[in-house]
């Protein structure tokens, strides 16, 4: 891979920022530096009216010079930013009021965009590896206007033909499976899958995973070799847009002073 003046974390943060429109509600977690930075970058560049829920508070951060990162989502020091307090169970009384978009991870991600945070299946039942658990991902991904699958690693152990267990249903067995279950009320499945190698989507007739863009310096063969199933490939394969110097300045001076993205 050729030398680039930005990290993968910065590239992906800029991609996420491009997906957010002014006025969106976004939920910023503590422990995912790339989606966090994407949300905040959108807020500072083109989203002055974005409603930011971060930790247990809702706020507008336009005039905060330093958006310091917090290690724990429960850190009470975020309360000094609060315009409103988020009572956690209230989120699930009206999930669409907290977030228009959401980010889902997985220890497995499959051809049809299903994701697994539960664990790896043992023959005859049970788990050989216990995963982190579903958290709020099933609910938030169902209610979001757009949700993204984000994986900080891209290899055949994560990108599998079929998830052992499904914590968030993407397109199930493909085709109209999502619609048949009535899961298409608020979104049509994962908007994209974002990895260190490429942006992928499901814009195929049967909703199988397809490459949407390659990150600069990545070859098609790298992505296919890192994926445990055959990817659909469009005729034209664009590059993921590179960060602008202004985006990099905002990231490095206001959002990510500690350089977590440069390590991501």
């Amino acid at each position, binding site marked *: 891979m050729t030398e680039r003046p930005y990290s993968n974390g910065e590239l992906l943060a800029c991609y996420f920022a491009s997906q957010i429109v002014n006025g969106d509600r976004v939920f910023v977690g*503590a*422990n995912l530096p790339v989606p966090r930075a994407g949300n905040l970058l959108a807020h500072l560049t083109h989203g002055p009216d974005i409603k930011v829920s971060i930790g*247990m*508070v809702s706020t507008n951060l336009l005039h905060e010079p330093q958006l310091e990162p917090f*290690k*724990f*989502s*429960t*850190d*009470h*020091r975020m*309360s000094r930013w609060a315009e409103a*307090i*988020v*009572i*956690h*169970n209230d989120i*699930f009384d009206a*999930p669409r009021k907290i977030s228009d978009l959401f980010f889902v991870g997985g220890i497995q991600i499959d051809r049809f965009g299903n994701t*697994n945070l*539960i*664990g790896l299946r043992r023959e005859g039942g*049970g*788990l*050989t*590896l*216990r*995963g*982190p*658990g*579903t*958290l*709020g*991902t*099933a*609910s*938030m*991904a*169902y*209610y979001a206007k757009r949700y993204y699958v984000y994986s900080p690693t891209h290899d055949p152990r994560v990108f599998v033909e079929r998830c052992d*267990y*499904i*914590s*968030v*249903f993407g397109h*199930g067995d493909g085709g109209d*499976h*999502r619609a048949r*279950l*009535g*899961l298409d009320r608020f979104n049509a499945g994962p908007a994209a899958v974002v990895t260190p190698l490429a942006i992928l989507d499901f814009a195929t007739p049967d909703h199988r995973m397809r490459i949407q863009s390659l990150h600069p310096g990545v070859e098609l063969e790298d992505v296919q070799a890192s994926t445990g199933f055959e990817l659909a490939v469009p005729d034209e394969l664009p590059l993921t847009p590179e960060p602008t110097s202004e985006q990099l300045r905002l990231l490095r001076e206001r959002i990510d002073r500690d350089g977590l993205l440069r390590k991501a």
Partner: protein
Amino acid sequence: MTPRRSSVRLDEEAALDLVRDGMTVAIGGFNTAAHPMAIVRGLVRRGVRGLRVVGGTIAGLELDLLIGAGVADEVVTSSVTGEALASVGPFFRNAAEAGAVRVWESDEGILYAGLRAAGQGLPSLPWKAGVGSSLPELNPDLRPYEDPITGEQLLAVAAIEVDIAFIHLSRADVYGLGQHTGSGFGDRMLHRAAKRTVLTAEKIVPNEQIRARAIETSIPYADGVVAAPWGAHPFSSPGHYLVDEQHLAEYLAAANAARKGDDGPFDAYLQRYVLGPSSHVEYLEQIGIGRLLALEEWG
């Protein structure tokens, strides 16, 4: 004679006396914050067994300790995590992989539906997310069904009935009026689902102070109130102190050693911090005042 209002103040032993083997006990707080640790350590010290433990919808390492110490048979939560310190609790991971603990596999919205059903005295409530997932295969309390009005496919989530909820918060008076600083996370739902609620509070305050800011009363009329300053340690307590990362690192090192088959460090941890001290105050003396004061929130 003028009748006198009854205090519900309890000492920690009287609060622990309310728990019997096999009960469903809710442990409040969320992730790395606000767990009622004086009670959690007391349950371990007493050798309580067979509990079904309902955590926050994302529980922290307090549930991991209850699994490691043999107190919990089942955990009702979507995750047992140390967040940035450990994505999965070591004892939870081990027990879940070995089938030694039952896991009420769920998502946060599903879990709140079950608690809400209990609060409303209903057998179940519907939830949509989780349809098509593996959660109903793993959790028999989640049953797919068709909405009788529209035919839409939904999950019926069985009520999560709680015998007793323990909730740690900032301040309470002796009449059971509790106030969180900050959001209170999902503690209100545990209280609503529980037959009885016992608060542990950083500070016992006069009823007049509660009345002065009555809108902040997040848990009204708990059945018991225990004074527990520093009572969430080693976790954070909003408005009071931060996570003691050094202590949690010591816990995680011991739990990870046990996961690899060496019980020595965890036995030593239990002896030093849980079984050795006979009360919450003795625990705090073991931690030391210098260490506690260093967890200052706004320093």
